[in-house]
């Protein structure tokens, strides 16, 4: 089991009140999964992904990464796991604006202390895999939305993580580009065995996923395997 959540809750203080973003979630993510977390806005999708990505700590419950309890993990250890085992794709791409496409992809490899030549080679391969082999030296503001998200995917896969967490990766893209991004992710899942967990509320994209977890008001409403053969 790659990730396991047991009775996880997450509360946020908001002024004098407390927002219960996640209200007790039990969930397991296995290696090679291609899972979508669906649900309306405010249902807790992003919070759940943040918890899985060790960007945040649960208020209650247990979170395991490869069997290790990481619910109260230190910042140093969480950083190490994120750097070596987890890839992230964000809704707003979150590319570093001052860096070119290839430099953005190289950045997590640099943080892994990979040597210059190997780093560049790996970044070039990752960008070629997402179809941007000819736009290595373009800065984010010189790329379209779809291209930016492809750079973000290349950045996530370049470090060969065990799992990629994508928070609404298609939300800022037109439907056609969004579908092509999901197809690309699925292809990588199938061919390279990369585990993907992504959130969306786009019905067409939900259909493509193998497993669908529906979140409603911070709780798992349903957890179904819908396309086991795809």
């Amino acid at each position: 089991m790659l990730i396991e959540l047991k009775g996880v809750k997450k509360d946020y203080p908001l002024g004098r009140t407390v927002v219960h973003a996640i209200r007790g979630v039990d969930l397991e993510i296995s290696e090679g999964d291609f899972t979508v977390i669906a649900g309306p806005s405010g249902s807790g999708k992003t919070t759940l992904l943040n918890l899985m990505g060790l960007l945040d700590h649960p208020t209650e419950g247990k979170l395991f990464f490869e069997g290790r309890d990481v619910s109260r993990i230190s910042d140093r250890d969480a950083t190490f796991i994120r750097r070596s085992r987890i890839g992230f794709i964000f809704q707003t791409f979150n590319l570093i604006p001052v860096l070119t496409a290839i430099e953005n992809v190289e950045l997590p490899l640099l943080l892994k202390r990979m040597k210059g030549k190997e780093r560049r080679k790996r970044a070039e391969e990752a960008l070629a895999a997402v179809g941007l082999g000819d736009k290595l030296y373009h800065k984010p503001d010189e790329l379209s939305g779809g291209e930016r998200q492809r750079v973000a995917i290349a950045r996530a896969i370049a470090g060969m993580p065990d799992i990629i967490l994508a928070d609404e990766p298609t939300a800022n893209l037109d439907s056609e580009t969004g579908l092509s991004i999901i197809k690309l992710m699925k292809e990588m899942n199938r061919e390279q065995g990369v585990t993907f967990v992504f959130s969306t509320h786009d019905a067409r994209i939900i259909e493509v996923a193998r497993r669908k977890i529906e979140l409603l008001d911070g709780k798992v409403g349903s957890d179904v395997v819908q396309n086991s053969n795809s």
Partner: protein
Amino acid sequence: MLFKTAIRNIFKYLRRSLVIFICLIVSIVALQVSDSISEGFKRQSKILMLESAGMILIERKGNDPFDLIQEGIKNFDEVERRIKSVIPDARVIPEIVAPAIVVNDTFSVNTLVIGTRRESLISTKLAKKLKADAGDTIVILSTNRAGGLSIKEVKIESVLTNGLFTGGVDLCIPIDKMEEFLLWDTGEVKQIRVNFNQYEKADSLSKLLSGMFPDLNITPWNERLKNLESLFRISDIKMYLFSFIVLLLTSGIIMNSVLSSVMERKKDLGTIRAIGSSRRFIIFLILTEVVIITFFSCLAGTFFSYIITRKLMQVGFHYESVAEMTQYIPPVLYPAINPLRWIVDVIFLFVWAIIWSIYPAVLIARMPPVKALREEI
């Protein structure tokens, strides 16, 4: 890549970078120019004082200062020639502090016999006491070196107005007029003051002269005027206070600008943290930017300081009216560049800029990535 990213960030957030850049330039110019003014004042005043006291003082060994018939330094011309052979720029001033007593009613005055002066001088204070003026003739009664009574008529050629002897009641008599009066040998002087251009070398030159004249007592100024440095420490303290105020203002501007700059890109830094950067990497990234800006600020600032100081060195600060009242303030004060002080200023500002950037850097680095990522621009 860290360096490249830092440089690009500097240009991306150009306005804030410029604020820090200009602030640091102003600070370094303020520190270096004020340093130069203070250094110029110190150096010139010190030279005036040392010229008066003698950068190196030469006396005969074993003389009792209270012995009226003590031996002086003989063959002054030869001594002078040998001094000039090792210190070509030396200004060798022979002096006879004569044991003469000037009596007018109950007045006793010091009589100085100065070889290089060609006129009889009288201090303002003494002139007032004696009710004498330039052109008057006074009679000096004294004991000569053989113990006999000597009487000498001296015409006062001028009353001193530059304050040279304001501390006492003194009379300066040309050496040739005093030879007979004191039974003094022309080639014999009581002490020799040696001045030269680089007073810092007094120690080593003294040692050199000591080897040449084993029967003479040769002392550099720093052995005789041990408190002279502390006198100028007052000027240093004023400088430190001024520097402190400048640095305090600089620290506020630096911290504020760096803080605004990192808050503006909270999301980018949060992303870097999310994809696996350590807190240290974020701190290094921000500090690298500050170091680059500080480096170029210091270069530009030092260039401007040099231009300004050179201009001030041409124009100078005029204190003629004050200088008339005391001999230790130069009539025109010229700034002086002390390269070591300038380097210290640069290093200090470097460290200062880094210190005040640490707080914003640590603040953003310690921020949980999820909080930084939530930031919407």
